[in-house]
């Protein structure tokens, strides 16, 4: 998108002079109109002079374009001193013939105007300086001072107009700075003469938080971002924070990055994408910082550089607390892989914070940045402004390809959270669930771009060996966590045991019943055999007795001579059989 913007703006005949200020060249599609005069307007302390100086120093250092500074506010020595802290050595640049600093300090009190005049000396000295160093850039700082000095507005207006045209003829790219007016862009309306490009700087202090903004009000013949862009005056100078819509052209990495918690990686389909932004929200004490610590730990473990920004706690405190989770982060600090930076947001303005943050990022080039407690930035401030700054910061990190994890207090339905949630790729929610007089932490993956992420809720347990994610109990009694989960699990275990016991007993019963019956069976068979034996025994004795009786009768009859011989058709058995009833009755 950025390239598209550049193509559309750099038409034929509209060449641009890059300012070298990160973000500004992006917004203007390449810099200020070359060979023209641009106006930078703003209230006192808005950063006009600095912008001008960066334009000159950037030109001298990066683009081999020498420049002339003509200041109507401060002496050359003072100007040099002011920017020394930013690493600008103006004296050296002057020695190298890349810069000329001229200053005029005129006290209106010892000046009287008596008749018509012109400001030809200005032209003369500019011409002299431009020629001497071959300047391509000129900055006229606080040119409007001329109005106060001479009290002849008509003449000064005419002269300013002439000066602007003259600078254009000389072919230098110029910046004129002017005080902001109430109704007009500048107090004296010099925007009338500077018609090609107008940039307005604004410095607002809202509820003790200072915010600087830059807006390109006008850029003739060029497309430009018309929004207000926050900017910082950091230790490295002017930084304009680009806006999301311009920078939506990040490279998308396919590489997965571990969050440092294996089960969380699994829930996210293997971890977060490298270069992605992860937001962790949750109310106080849900374990956001611990999750961040894991991310940091994991990063250092891979041998990559991590930056941990703490907005709510001191490094020592966090290091101690994380040790109780078994995360020894001090090792990584000692190994120069981890940089921890902490400051309460109330200690500085938001701007100072972001400036410092920016510098840290520049210095350490971390592959992972963890911002702990970004909600703290918004303490006591209307959220929208802070979040728009945070959003831009996230954006900046993203455009650098830095993976970011930011934690913030708040629930998922809070509007401020929602406003930045659209910028993040992954959104984890930690929530306390209060049941049976205890709180338990649950982790949800609300969003994970480009990932088939788990829709499961996990219980988030802080152990002495780090964060663990445990599956929550989901059963007929609903979702349970913590000791309720443990209790439920115990109940289930009990029930299982009991069931097993019952079964065992039943089996035992059955088995004993079987063996009992088998014993019975054996006894019964023995009985059967005994009885059968008895039957056989009785049978054989009976038969013997019958035979004996027969023999007796025969012998008795023969003795009594009753019969000659036994009846031939009566067998002995039949006779016995016919006699049996009598016999039975006798017995």
């Amino acid at each position, binding site marked *: 998108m950025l390239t598209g913007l550049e193509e559309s703006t750099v038409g034929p005949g509209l060449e641009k002079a890059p300012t070298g200020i990160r973000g500004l060249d992006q917004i203007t599609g390449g810099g200020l109109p070359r060979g023209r005069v641009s106006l930078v307007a703003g209230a006192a302390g808005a950063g006009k002079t600095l912008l001008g100086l960066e334009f000159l120093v950037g030109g001298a250092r990066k683009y081999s374009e020498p420049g002339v500074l003509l200041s109507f506010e401060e002496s050359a020595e003072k100007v040099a001193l002011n920017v020394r802290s930013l690493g600008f050595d103006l004296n050296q640049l002057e020695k190298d013939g890349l810069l000329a600093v001229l200053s005029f300090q*005129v006290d209106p009190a010892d000046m*009287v*105007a*008596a008749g018509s005049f012109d400001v*030809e000396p200005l032209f003369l*000295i500019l011409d002299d300086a431009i020629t001497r160093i071959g300047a391509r850039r000129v900055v006229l700082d606080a040119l409007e001072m001329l109005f106060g000095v*001479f009290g002849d507005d008509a003449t000064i207006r005419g002269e300013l107009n002439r000066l602007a045209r003259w600078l254009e003829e000389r072919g230098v790219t110029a910046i004129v700075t002017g005080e902001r007016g109430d109704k007009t862009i500048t107090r004296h309306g010099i925007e009338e003469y500077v018609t090609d490009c107008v940039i307005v700087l604004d410095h607002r202090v809202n509820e003790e938080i200072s915010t600087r903004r830059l807006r390109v009000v006008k850029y003739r013949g060029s497309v430009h971002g018309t929004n207000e862009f926050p900017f910082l005056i950091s230790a490295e100078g002017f930084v304009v924070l680009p806006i999301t819509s311009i920078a939506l052209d990040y490279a998308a990495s396919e590489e997965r990055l571990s969050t440092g918690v294996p089960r969380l990686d699994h829930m996210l389909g293997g971890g977060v994408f490298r270069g992605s932004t992860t937001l962790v929200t949750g109310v106080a004490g849900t374990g956001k910082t611990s999750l961040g610590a894991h991310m940091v730990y994991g990063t250092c473990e891979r041998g990559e550089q991590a930056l941990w920004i703490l907005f709510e706690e001191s490094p020592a405190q966090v290091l101690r607390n994380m040790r109780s989770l078994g995360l020894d982060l001090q090792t990584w600090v000692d190994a120069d892989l981890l940089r921890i930076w902490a400051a309460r947001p109330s200690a500085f303005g938001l701007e100072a914070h972001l400036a410092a943050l920016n510098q840290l990022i520049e210095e350490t080039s971390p592959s992972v940045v963890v911002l702990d407690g970004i909600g703290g930035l918004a303490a006591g401030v209307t959220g929208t402004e802070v979040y728009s700054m945070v959003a831009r910061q996230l954006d900046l990190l993203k455009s650098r390809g830095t993976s970011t994890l930011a934690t913030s207090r708040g629930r998922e339905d809070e509007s401020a959270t929602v406003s930045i949630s659209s910028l993040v790729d992954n959104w984890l929610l930690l929530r306390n669930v209060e049941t049976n007089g205890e709180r338990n932490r649950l982790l949800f993956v609300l969003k994970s771009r480009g990932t088939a992420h788990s829709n499961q809720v996990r219980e988030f347990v802080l152990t002495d060996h780090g964060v663990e994610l445990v599956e929550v109990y989901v059963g007929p009694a609903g979702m349970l966590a913590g000791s309720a989960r443990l209790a439920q699990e115990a109940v289930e275990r009990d029930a299982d045991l009991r069931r097993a016991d019952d079964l065992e007993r039943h089996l035992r019963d059955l088995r004993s019943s079987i063996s009992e019956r088998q014993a019975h069976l054996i006894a019964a068979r023995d009985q059967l055999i005994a009885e059968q034996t008895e039957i056989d025994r009785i049978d054989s004795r009976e038969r013997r007795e019958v035979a004996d009786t027969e023999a007796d009768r025969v012998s008795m009859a023969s003795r009594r001579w009753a019969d000659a011989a036994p009846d031939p058709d009566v067998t002995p058995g039949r006779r016995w059989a016919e006699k049996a009833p009598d016999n039975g009755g006798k017995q």
Partner: protein
Amino acid sequence: MWELRLYVTGQSPNSIRAIENLRRVCEEYNPGRYQIEVVDLLENPRLAVQDQILAVPTVVRKLPMPIKKIVGDLSDIERLLVGLQVRAPRKAPA
């Protein structure tokens, strides 16, 4: 004794008028007790920065102290006299 320095750029109409006006006023109000040095910035532009001269013509009264600067072709005699501290500034112009 007035020690005056007049900064001009070449022979511009303003420059010529300023020299004439300054001489006349000096003769009239401080005859014989003045010294005028004319400096042409075209010849040495860097003097403009050194002496902090933004506009031309500019008369600098170096003596008597304090230093005073009067800018213009000096056609406004009243204001020139105020600048040279010959006359107190009027409350309201006539």
